[in-house]
């Protein structure tokens, strides 16, 4: 056997290239060996290896986030290739399904809200591209934590803009998500259980002490064009050093310019929600009710790191860069281990450190040596998450039977095998849609990306406009703002009428009002476009550019296709979080309110949906699946079709004995299919 570290270390130079098969296999074996010898010491017997059917279902669900299709399952089970388990893992990590699954992991952990201002859309699209391009984890986090300026220039800034106005909460979440520590309590008082004091909390937050939510680029542009920036100008033209009289005269002189700056500045009215600025003069202050001896209330706080790491003189303009660097440094005692443990949980259903969000309050891990090993593997894989996960999926542990008892909360898990898990919200929805439509992993909904690209283009055009163009754009955008409000008012009145009609159960009237709303919107858009064009007092060939630029002065609501099973799209192609009442939300998909809010708890509405919902009806009544089922000629064919499609297995002898008599007619087979969709055997992944 080759040694683990030297092999991996050689991969350090080969950035972003897949690890060689040998490296992956040897590392996986290293992990297995270390685990088994630790387990033997603790008298834990590893579980036996699962059969092909169990493995193929587990591999598909874990790696690409959905159950296998009939053909995928059959092909794998029928294959005589002794290497087939290794091969399928290596194949699956290269498919778009892998990205889909990982993207869902991020939206849950990072609380992505696609519909939250323009920044939400930009960040969503950026994150998706980062996953699709397999951006190394440390780069990804560094990009987000050090992002500056406007989201159109740097969409990773969406990470901070997600919590606009809530900088302290953002800091708590950053430390929880990337470093696995809960320091939120120290926002108000010394942490009762951990070591973090309120002072330490504020010192850490002080790295973000200069961060403001505003668009400096817009101000700079106006200043460049008009001579002064809009808004407060405390030290305009060196006024601070002038006498009172001089100042008055200066103000008089500047009056026209200030007015103009204010006027033109309104084109950027929505941009402060979508940009960050680091004000070098600003520092974080201790809260007014600070109660400890190590600082005075209201006093400025200098930045300082947690975990006793030293800070040198930090230039005020570089605070967030230093912060990002500290979080993502391989020397940070938690950064690498935390993501290694989170992905371990993704692969095996439970963390080596039991609570990945709260290391300090987790019981001591049973296998600290594995945690160390994973940290090394992650660093050696250069934070390439795909390669890291590939290693975990190539372990023997990933092939072992799940444990019959679930991990006991508050205890470290013994990992005799992986934990039994229910399909997650997105996994369940995507599995149902795959049953309905076949493999849809390659389908993409470009509308979010397109919507974003369009915005960026118009933003760039806006930033390039000269004074005259900007004045025209301003006029048109003021006009369209007034119109927008008018229309909004009309529509909200119509909405009230519609709610009333709904309340009265007048379906015809509801329909009529819905049409009215659509018409109102369409007519208003046409009108503002036409009028806006007329207002563009410039050469005809300039007008389209100015119109495009004007689009960036408006608020943007991302359009996307509604979540419908016949859309043939994976959950990861839709805006997040899923609407309440949707399949994903009902089955515990993320609500994007707190990190890792997704859950797999049972509820009555879930069962009702499986019993009587749209997906089940489509599957058994009129969809493609129903047709295929009808085409099966014999009872045996029907049973095999259902078992391979829904359970990814051939019916066993017992299954045949029990169920052949139940599928004598296609209609009876449909009833069995409906029963299968509500069974625990379907909902859980062994």
């Amino acid at each position, binding site marked *: 056997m080759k040694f683990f570290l030297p092999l991996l270390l050689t991969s350090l130079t080969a950035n972003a290239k897949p690890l060689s098969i040998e490296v992956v296999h040897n590392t996986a074996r290293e992990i297995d060996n270390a685990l088994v010898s630790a387990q033997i010491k603790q008298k834990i017997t590893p579980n036996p290896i699962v059969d092909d059917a169990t493995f193929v279902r587990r591999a598909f669900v874990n790696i690409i986030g959905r159950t296998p299709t009939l053909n995928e399952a059959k092909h794998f089970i029928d294959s005589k290739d002794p290497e087939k388990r290794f091969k399928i893992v290596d194949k699956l990590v290269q498919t778009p399904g892998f990205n889909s699954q990982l993207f869902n992991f991020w939206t849950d952990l990072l609380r992505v809200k696609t519909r939250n201002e323009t920044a939400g859309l930009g960040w969503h699209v950026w994150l998706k591209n980062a996953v699709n391009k397999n951006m190394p984890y440390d780069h990804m986090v560094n990009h987000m934590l050090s992002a500056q300026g406007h989201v159109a220039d740097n969409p990773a800034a969406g990470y901070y803009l997600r919590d606009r106005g809530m900088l302290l909460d953002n800091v708590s979440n950053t430390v929880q998500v990337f470093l696995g520590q809960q320091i939120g309590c120290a926002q108000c008082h010394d942490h009762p259980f951990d070591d973090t004091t309120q002072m330490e909390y504020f010192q850490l937050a002080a790295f973000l002490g200069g961060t403001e939510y505003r668009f400096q680029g817009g101000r700079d542009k106006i200043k460049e064009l008009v001579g002064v920036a809009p808004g407060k100008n405390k030290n305009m033209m060196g006024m601070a050093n002038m006498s009172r009289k001089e100042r008055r005269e200066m103000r008089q002189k500047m009056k026209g310019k200030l007015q103009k700056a204010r006027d033109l500045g309104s084109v950027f009215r929505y941009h402060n929600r979508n940009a960050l600025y680091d004000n070098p003069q600003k520092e974080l202050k201790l809260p007014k009710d600070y109660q400890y001896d190590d600082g005075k209330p209201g006093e400025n706080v200098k930045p300082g790191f947690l975990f006793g790491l030293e800070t040198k003189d930090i230039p005020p303009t570089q605070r967030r860069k230093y912060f990002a660097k500290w979080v993502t440094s391989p020397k940070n005692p938690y950064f690498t281990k935390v993501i290694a443990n989170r992905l371990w949980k993704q692969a095996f259903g439970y963390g080596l450190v039991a*609570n990945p969000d709260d290391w300090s309050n987790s019981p001591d891990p049973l296998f600290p040596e594995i945690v160390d090993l994973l940290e090394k593997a992650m660093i050696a894989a250069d934070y390439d998450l795909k390669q890291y996960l590939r290693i975990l999926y190539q372990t023997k542990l990933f092939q072992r039977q799940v444990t019959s008892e*679930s991990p006991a909360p*508050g205890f470290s898990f013994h990992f005799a095998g992986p934990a*039994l898990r229910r399909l997650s919200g997105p996994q369940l929805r995507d599995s149902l849609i795959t049953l309905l439509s076949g493999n849809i992993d390659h389908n993409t909904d470009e509308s979010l990306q397109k919507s974003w690209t369009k915005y960026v283009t118009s933003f760039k055009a806006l930033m390039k406009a000269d004074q005259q163009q900007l004045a025209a754009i301003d006029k048109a955008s003021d006009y369209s703002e007034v119109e927008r409000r008018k229309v909004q008012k009309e529509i909200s009145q119509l909405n009230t009428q519609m709610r009333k009609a709904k309340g009265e159960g007048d379906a015809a009237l509801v329909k009529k009002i819905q049409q009215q709303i659509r018409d109102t919107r369409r007519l208003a858009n046409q009108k503002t476009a036409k009028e806006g064009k007329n207002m563009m007092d410039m050469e005809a060939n300039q007008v389209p550019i100015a119109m495009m630029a004007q689009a960036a002065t408006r608020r943007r609501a991302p359009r996307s296709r509604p979540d419908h099973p016949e859309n043939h799209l994976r959950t990861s192609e839709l805006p997040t979080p899923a609407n309440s*009442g*949707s399949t994903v939300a009902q089955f*515990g998909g993320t609500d994007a309110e707190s990190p890792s809010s997704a859950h797999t708890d049972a509820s009555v509405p879930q069962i009702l949906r499986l019993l009587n919902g749209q997906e089940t009806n489509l599957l058994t009544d009129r969809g493609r699946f129903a047709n295929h089922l009808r085409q099966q000629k014999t009872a045996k064919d029907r049973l095999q079709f259902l078992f391979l499609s829904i359970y990814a297995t051939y019916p066993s002898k017992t299954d045949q004995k029990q169920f052949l008599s139940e599928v004598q007619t296609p209609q009876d087979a449909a009833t069995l299919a409906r029963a299968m969709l509500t069974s625990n*055997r379907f909902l859980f992944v062994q």
Partner: protein
Amino acid sequence: MTHLQLDPESRRDFLSSTARAALGVSIGGAAASWFNSAEAAEAIAKSNGKAKHVIYLYMAGGMTHIDTLDPKPEAPSEYRGPVKAISTNVDGIQLGHHFEKTAKHADKMAIIRSMNSTQGAHAQGNYHIHTAYTERASLTHPSLGSWANKLDPARLKSTLPPFVTVHAGNRHPGAGFFEPSLAPLPVGDAEKGLQFAKKKKNISEKQFNRQIALRAKLDTEFAARFNKGQRNVRAYDEMFDAAVNLMKSKDLEAFDLSKETKETHLAYGTEKFSKGVLLARRLVENGVRFVEVQYRGFDWHSNNFTQADEKLPVLDQAYAALLTDLKQRGLLDSTLVVIATEFGRTPLIDSDAGRNHFPKAFSFALAGAGIKGGTVYGATDKTASNVITDKTSAADFNATIAAAMGLNHDQVIYSPSRRPFKMGGKTGQPIKEVLT
């Protein structure tokens, strides 16, 4: 093997039930010996379990106290902001000016102005208020609604679930370590009500029954392997039975808001929250014991007052309409209405016209069954920054709800790991001053 051997699970059950029997804690009815103070016993005896139902309105995100239930008209403007205090139908009780309609119901309300906790982050605060305990890695504590049904398992109407949440977020503690049947039924959108509760028309009763029988058969092997050791697997079996029962319920119309008149709809308001409150009334009317309706988006770190202008009138209208409606239907004598949230907001307004998290002082409201209306309990200082009298914890508050329902807040229930827990938390005591 001939001798009887208990597997670990049943041994645990056996031990805990012996423990319970020894302590006399699993017997129903009121017995003074349960209480750790005569005062509390008296409070419970007095309330006489008037509240058969609870409608628990939860303002998610942390509702500002100084702008709503604890206005400070005398405070400097950097605290008070543009919010004015208005008089109510009870002398001496004032509310923030957004609560214009609520002000006409102050005679039914008890306002607790001395809430205090140490949980200043959303998830932890939310957990603490719902459970009266602080979050632990080792177990999830049950939330109020599950406690109520645990302590008094007799269902008011057998075909509807005893605990429903409306518009609740993912982080609801639900039944905690209690059995899954005590978990709330979550309604994601009040206007849609309970979806998919009707069997498809082209599926016959016979087919449907066959489908149910087949499910059990399909899971035989799976159940043998996992039911004992996996709580979530058992939960799905229980939920399945509950769902099938619910489909047969004659009371499903309780979930259907279209049965309400136009006037009622308009009285409650047109927002999603308004519909949730209306649904709560329908459910209570149909025998649901505990309904929690959440109103999200109270985390006003910036533009506190613009957001107040948007959201508070919605709460005001729905709350006032609910009290009026319950009263008219004769349900207010048996229904307790609660306003709760995870914490208050910093009374000193910050540079973005925002208010930040403030667990040191905040306000809750109780109204209806078992509650002494026209009461204010506890007080904060001149700027609503510190509790100066009758400091009240989440545990006390939950114990008060228990008392109003005629439940023993001090009854011990053991977790599967055999640790003792109570509806009123470790130390909670009912506030007798607000109970009738």
